[in-house]
């Protein structure tokens, strides 16, 4: 009751708050107070509801369906906390919580000075309002007896919950989703600023005070996305960090747009250009967050993703759809409403080689990349098809090359006029360094011409940005955030070239004790150890010890597999040896139990034809289906008994044997049979296989062996692993970290700028070279 009530209060208060802010926008300044008051009530409602849910999770209140479904008493604290957002209801709650917290800071921020408080807060609260509406429809505060009225009586409290999916039982589960949701929630702010600017008909001032927020979103969302990549790579064993999966793509698209808007908004502050572009991109980034939520939460992509989706029900589907449609309509409506004013804004400078043009090209390339990913990801909605990863890779490759080129060159180009002699001189040193590094890369194996080009432009971008960063740092200043971010991206791409294009993979079947060689390493499977994970008391896990030897140096690698009772399937986790320039990645595939039937004893018998088996002559007559229907229900279930009738001649006698075998879930447990007068050979019927008529029709797989010649215990279990070498993947992760540091440095710098240089906004307006715009300001 309490939880639901809090959400209702928050929802109603948000509506009143929106009205208050809107009336304040219409000029009735008194209503600003009402807007603020009810905004605070909304925030308090959402915060206490979230706290209440956290309390329910921490104290195991299993009478709540959500807590019962996601959580259990055997989880350790970080994972117990993470069950808060393990399901849909909780992740909407988390989204609401972050939006509310951001709202507190935002309100504090916009109430200072002329920052369009009424307009911005009206839009921001509308978003929060929709999130609380979804929380009403998909509440984490349902009791079990409300969810399952047929099975559970009023007031029943189970002693234990279902527990967290073992796939999610990982440290990253505690930090990846919150980071991503914080990023998503923060994109509401630039959207609210852009919409506020449209409402107020003031397209200038927001450009300066929205920059720290855009940076914050970019940094956090980027970090969240790459955390997901690292999780997939290091724990989930997907083999790579990025699979162009709809869930990954749909969070990447808003990030790319956000980064594009970051560049054009900085250009607006310098030159006054890109006013329309900035409004559009800030709005688009947020609408794409909604689109992403819709794609991943509505169940619409059920068939085309490795992420498992649950169908949230028609109400939530409709609410999510309404969320996108409402905000798209409002956005388009506002743009049309201000269309006349927007049209008169001056267009950008027409010179090709200015910093402004290059920034524009960069932003355009980013948008092209977002468009490519958007089209590919959306395809399953519109048709019975999807696109292969190759599409994303091939299309983004030329875009990335263009991006690296602009990212390097734009730094040596001025906002107004560039001295070409100086420009060329500046390029000499980075050019030489890049060229030398490229030669080294070619010597160690870089071959493909287009990747050589990609590596070259990435190196140029790296050296130019590094050189400028060093120069700035030497002069004692700290405004190197942008350069750091660029260095990070350049390293990231170099890591992508190495790891994506030059990875090698082989499947190794490692019979216990037998050594196999691959990539210059000697692999020997030396047996498995059972162990218990602190967070999962239900399943015994197995670490498969593989001795890896190279140049007389040995190490043990331990990929893990176990049968999970929760998901009723085998869970696999890789082990990775990290070297400075490459990773050795061992992904467990399966454990093959030793077969009691040696391969030389196996015969595939065709119906009606005679086969020689040692001194025996064997003819397969037919299967004995007993009372079963061939291919009927019993057989489809996998639980049945099937016989194979053989006519066997040992040179003296001819006997007919009916080899009966019991199948459990399709796995045979054959009964041994012998001839009456010749006990030398034992017969086992293993399986029937149906091949195409050309291949000989139905056959029976039979083992005919002489037990005296089979040495028991010689066969050992075989571990199958996929071993791969991934070059330069450490460069990729280093790049990601440097990128994030770059964002942080930029946020610190821009925040200071805004806090200590209040009148900057006015300066910017004065710089605006176009007199036409001046009269328009309110």
């Amino acid at each position, binding site marked *: 009751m309490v939880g639901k009530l809090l959400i209702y209060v928050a929802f109603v208060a948000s509506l009143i708050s929106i009205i208050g802010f809107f009336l304040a926008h219409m000029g009735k300044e008194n209503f600003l107070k009402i807007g603020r008051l009810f905004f605070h009530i909304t925030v308090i409602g959402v915060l206490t509801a979230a706290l209440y849910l956290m309390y329910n999770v921490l104290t195991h209140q299993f009478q709540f369906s959500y807590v019962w*479904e996601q959580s259990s008493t055997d989880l350790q604290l970080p994972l117990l906390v993470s069950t808060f957002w393990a399901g849909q209801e909780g992740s909407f709650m988390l989204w609401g919580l972050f939006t509310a917290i951001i709202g507190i800071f935002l309100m504090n921020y916009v109430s200072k000075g002329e920052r369009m408080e009424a307009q911005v807060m009206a839009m921001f609260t509308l978003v929060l309002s929709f999130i609380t509406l979804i929380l009403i429809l998909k509440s984490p505060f349902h009791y079990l007896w409300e969810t399952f009225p047929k099975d559970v009586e009023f007031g029943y409290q189970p002693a234990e919950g279902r527990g967290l999916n073992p796939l999610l039982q990982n440290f990253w589960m505690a930090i990846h989703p919150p980071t991503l949701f914080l990023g998503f929630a923060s994109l509401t702010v630039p959207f609210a600023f852009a919409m506020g600017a449209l409402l107020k008909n003031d397209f200038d001032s927001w450009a300066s005070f929205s920059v720290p927020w855009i940076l914050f979103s970019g940094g956090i969302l980027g970090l969240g996305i790459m955390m997901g990549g690292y999780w997939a790579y290091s724990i989930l064993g997907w083999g790579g960090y990025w699979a162009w999966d709809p869930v990954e793509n749909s969070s990447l698209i808003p990030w790319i747009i956000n980064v594009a808007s970051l560049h054009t908004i900085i250009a607006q502050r310098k030159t006054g250009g890109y006013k329309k572009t900035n409004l559009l991109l800030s709005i688009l980034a947020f609408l794409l967050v909604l689109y992403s939520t819709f794609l991943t939460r509505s169940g619409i992509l059920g068939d085309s993703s490795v992420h498992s989706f649950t*169908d949230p029900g028609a109400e939530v589907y409709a609410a999510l759809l309404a969320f996108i449609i409402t905000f798209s309509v409002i956005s388009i409506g506002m743009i049309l409403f201000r269309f006349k004013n927007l049209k008169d804004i001056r267009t950008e400078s*027409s010179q090709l080689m200015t910093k402004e043009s290059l920034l524009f090209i960069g932003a355009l390339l980013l948008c092209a990349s977002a468009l490519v990913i958007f089209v590919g990801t959306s395809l399953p909605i519109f048709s019975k098809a999807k696109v292969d990863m190759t*599409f994303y890779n091939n299309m983004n490759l030329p875009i990335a090359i263009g991006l690296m080129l602009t990212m390097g060159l734009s730094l040596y180009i001025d906002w107004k006029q560039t001295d070409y002699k100086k420009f060329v001189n500046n390029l000499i040193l980075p050019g030489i360094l890049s060229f030398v590094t490229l030669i080294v890369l070619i010597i160690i194996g870089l071959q493909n011409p287009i990747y050589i080009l990609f590596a070259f432009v990435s190196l140029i971008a790296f050296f130019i940005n590094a050189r400028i960063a060093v120069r700035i740092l030497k002069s004692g200043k700290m405004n190197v955030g942008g350069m750091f971010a660029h260095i990070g991206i350049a390293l990231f791409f170099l890591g992508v070239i190495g790891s994506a294009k030059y990875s090698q993979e082989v499947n190794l079947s490692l019979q216990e004790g037998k050594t196999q060689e691959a990539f210059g390493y000697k692999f020997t499977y030396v047996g498995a150890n059972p162990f218990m994970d602190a967070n999962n008391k239900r399943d015994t896990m197995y670490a498969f010890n593989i001795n890896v030897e190279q140049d007389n140096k040995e190490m043990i690698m331990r990929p893990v597999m176990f049968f999970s009772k929760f998901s*009723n399937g085998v869970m696999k986790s890789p082990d990775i040896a990290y070297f400075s320039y490459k990773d050795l990645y061992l992904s467990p595939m399966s454990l093959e139990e030793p077969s009691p039937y040696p391969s030389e004893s196996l015969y595939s018998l065709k119906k009606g034809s005679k086969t020689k088996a040692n001194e025996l002559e064997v003819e397969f007559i037919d299967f004995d289906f007993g009372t079963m229907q061939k*291919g009927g229900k019993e057989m489809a279930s996998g639980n049945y008994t099937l016989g194979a009738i053989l006519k066997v001649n040992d040179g003296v006698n001819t006997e007919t044997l009916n080899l009966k075998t019991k199948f459990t879930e399709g796995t045979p447990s054959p009964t041994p049979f012998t001839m009456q007068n010749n006990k030398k050979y034992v017969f086992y019927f293993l399986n*029937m296989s*149906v091949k195409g008529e050309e291949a000989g029709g139905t056959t029976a*797989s039979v083992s005919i062996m002489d037990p005296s010649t089979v040495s028991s215990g010689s066969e050992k279990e075989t571990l199958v692993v996929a071993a791969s070498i991934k070059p330069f993947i450490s460069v990729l992760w280093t790049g990601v970290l440097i990128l994030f540091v770059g964002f942080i440095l930029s946020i610190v710098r821009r925040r200071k700028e805004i806090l200590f240089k209040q009148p900057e906004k006015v300066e910017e307006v004065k710089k605006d070279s176009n007199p036409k715009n001046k009269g328009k300001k309110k």
Partner: protein
Amino acid sequence: MTGKIKIIIASVVVVVFIVVGFMSFMDNKIDYASFADAQKRLKTVEVKGVWQKDKETKYDAEKSTFTFYMKDEANTEMKVILDGAKPNNFDIATMIVAKGKVKDDVFYAKEILTKCPSKYEGKGEDVKKSSNL
């Protein structure tokens, strides 16, 4: 003048991008198909179906291929050879999505997705059971 050149260059780039993009899109589009469709076309497709438990199902450790029989939604059965080990949750999957091509009456799969719709959802009848874990 420079403005005009800029527009011409930009238009050429945009047109090339769209044409190349469209071609790449058509090349890499993977349709959902039946085995019958897959047999007619040489392109990679995705086939949805159900594993036939009563038919041969085995993993070849040497070649690292997993072989099984699958019946698609049009009730056509075909042998499927996956390049790799038995996929996760294969035994309990209610639906299998295999990506690959047909060659000589065998569907060679590069990738298999297993679908277990109710896997992560709690059911009413489980509420009381979970207390006994």
